[in-house]
């Protein structure tokens, strides 16, 4: 035995000793959701404290989250008891690495969500946990400049552009705000809002004539958009600071504005285009990795999270809405009330055109989003000709669809095999 090996042995022995001292039986809840410090605190104090077992809630950015999970799967030995992430994160994983949850006896109230959670297998691979959507919000100051005859709960894109132009003129600077920053969710606006509203599709209609109109309209809107938008990722900040008066974003990324100054802002549905009022849900789920140290404890935690009262506590803590049937209480935070009303009006509107989350893309989900982001950057930021950019990006989109074989999802018409880009 060499000296070096002795040292290594001693070092790992020491480490084992330290590790043994720290080991405890808490279920480790490894999440990418509820990441901001105040939401983490609320998750621990209000949501997980009601569970019988102690839960160690740790929220991470996506990179460390995936790396740690991969490492535990490769080492075949885990500390993570429960995973919390978005549908897109789970769909990029191998379903083999997640424990089947079909026999849990609980599921969400939405068949669509339950189907999505099967990730193409026969059984649920993750449990739908909470949902959200994207809405519009405005400073009450901006309501003075609404175009004549426009109903804020039934806006069209043309009216939105006119409104933004009026506000631009009145304030002397562009006051529309769009989350086009590095961490902004701009791609969801194109996939779930702009494209469905103008083309009634996302993939099939990517390079259609209607798509050209959509991008022309968005260019018009961009003229009245705060140019700092390429640096905005959480529009609540710009609402509060006054840098933007009218904004689009994820409901939980607007929550602070409503909670801090509930009387200053209004939430309202996304606008409608010629093909209806496109909108898209956000779905988060929980799953058990196959390396979980205590399967029963993990399943008990899922059962706790799916209880109606826990779902309401989660709503208050994170501004994500329940996925099971619940009676909402009256003492909800202002952000939840505002967002809930706007989403209800959006989905209940006569011209509603709901879309689904991209499905079947596996680990190509990031590349798929990239196509839309690049298209935006080339057309709107770089000012390149719309038709040429769309034809160019179309080949990339086609390659992704053919490689993954993903069938179309709503609002695209169903397809046999891979969704075609027409």
């Amino acid at each position: 035995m060499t000296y070096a090996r002795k040292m290594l042995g001693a070092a790992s022995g020491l480490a084992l000793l330290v590790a043994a001292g720290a080991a405890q039986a808490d279920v480790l809840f490894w999440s990418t959701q509820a990441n901001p410090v105040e939401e983490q605190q609320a998750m621990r104090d209000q949501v997980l404290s009601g569970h019988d077992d102690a839960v160690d809630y740790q929220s991470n950015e996506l990179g460390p989250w995936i790396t740690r999970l991969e490492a535990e799967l490769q080492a075949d030995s885990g500390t993570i008891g429960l995973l919390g992430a978005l549908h897109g994160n789970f769909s990029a994983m191998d379903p083999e690495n997640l424990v089947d949850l079909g026999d849990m006896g609980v599921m969400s109230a939405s068949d669509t969500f339950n189907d999505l959670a099967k990730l193409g297998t026969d059984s649920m691979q993750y449990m739908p946990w909470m949902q959200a959507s994207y809405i519009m919000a405005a400073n009450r100051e901006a309501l003075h400049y609404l175009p004549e005859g426009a109903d804020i709960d039934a806006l069209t894109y043309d009216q939105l552009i006119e409104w933004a132009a009026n506000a631009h003129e009145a304030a002397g600077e562009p006051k529309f705000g769009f989350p086009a920053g590095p961490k902004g969710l701009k791609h969801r606006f194109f996939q779930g809002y702009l494209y469905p509203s103008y083309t009634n599709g996302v993939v099939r209609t990517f390079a259609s004539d209607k798509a050209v109109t959509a991008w022309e309209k968005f260019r018009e809107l961009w003229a009245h958009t705060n140019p700092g938008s390429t640096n905005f990722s959480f529009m609540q900040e710009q609402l509060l600071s006054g840098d933007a008066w009218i904004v689009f974003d994820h409901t939980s990324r607007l929550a602070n504005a409503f909670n801090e100054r509930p009387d200053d802002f209004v939430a309202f549905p996304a606008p409608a285009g010629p093909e209806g009022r496109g909108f898209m849900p956000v779905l988060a789920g929980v799953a058990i990795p196959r390396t979980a140290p205590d399967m029963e404890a993990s399943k008990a935690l899922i059962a706790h999270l799916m209880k109606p009262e826990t779902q309401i506590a989660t709503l208050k803590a994170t501004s994500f809405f329940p996925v099971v049937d619940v009676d909402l209480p009256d003492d909800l935070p202002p952000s939840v009330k505002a967002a809930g009303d706007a989403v209800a009006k959006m989905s209940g509107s006569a011209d509603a055109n709901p879309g689904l989350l991209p499905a079947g893309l596996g680990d190509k989900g990031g590349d798929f989003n990239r196509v839309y982001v690049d298209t935006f950057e080339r057309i709107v930021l770089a000012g390149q000709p719309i038709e040429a950019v769309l034809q160019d990006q179309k080949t990339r989109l086609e390659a992704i669809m053919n490689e993954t074989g993903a069938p179309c999802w709503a609002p695209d018409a169903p397809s046999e095999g891979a969704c075609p880009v027409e």
Partner: protein
Amino acid sequence: MAAPVPHPDKEPDAAPAASTRSAGRLLYLAGVILLCAWVLVPIYFLMINTLSAPETVNSFPKPFFPEFDLGSLQFFAGFAGMLAALKNSILVAALTMIMSIAIGSPAGYALSRFDFPGKELFRLLILLTRAFPLPLLALPLAVMFIQTGLDDTQFGLALVHTTLALPFAVLITFSLFSGIPIELEEAAWTLGCTRLTAFTKVVLPLILPGITASAIFAFVISWNEVFAAAVLTIENRTLTAFLLQSLDTPPLHLKFAGGFILVVPALIFIFAVRKYLFAMWGIANR
């Protein structure tokens, strides 16, 4: 009588020389002020925003004097696990300091005192350890750590941080040793010292300030590292891994307070050891 009278044709020359001198002085002063402001103004605004109520943080222009609203800091006082994370950060940083000096300075000594084949290549290779981004290394490292039981320990994380700090430790100590003439050691040998005692009695006291400086580098590298800490520790998180990932998205006033909490311990440490840092650059009062 003639002496105090200035020479008639000297006078037009003297004035421009003086004004050039004072302009140079002005430029120098402006440079000093600019450099100080470069560092101090952001820290000052960080402090003002930390000590302000949320409404003030979101307003513009900012007040010049803080209003001493402790709400944001109180939030973190109640945030579970802060103190444990702070303790872990200090422990990991201290271990990193000790190990990177213990391993790095002998390597620096060898590089400066001995000739061996491949020496130049070795110096280059040492820098190459910084060429691989951590997110790339973290996965195989984590797998190995889980298998060996090093996972989730301060010692294991300190090993990784030592690897990151080592190139600096080696190169800094290399240049320090090279600056000390070998003749000093040879003189000590002739006076009865062994190689070891010559080192401890003659060379070590001379380079101690420099060693401290490279220890500071090791400390700061460990303190600021997020990715490996987030992947390799669960229960024993460092403060940076614990907080930094979660400071992207919360409301502004919590961002500022969290940033303040992350910056202050590092500032205190650097302030405490600053004279050694200056000593390395030869501008201290030794």
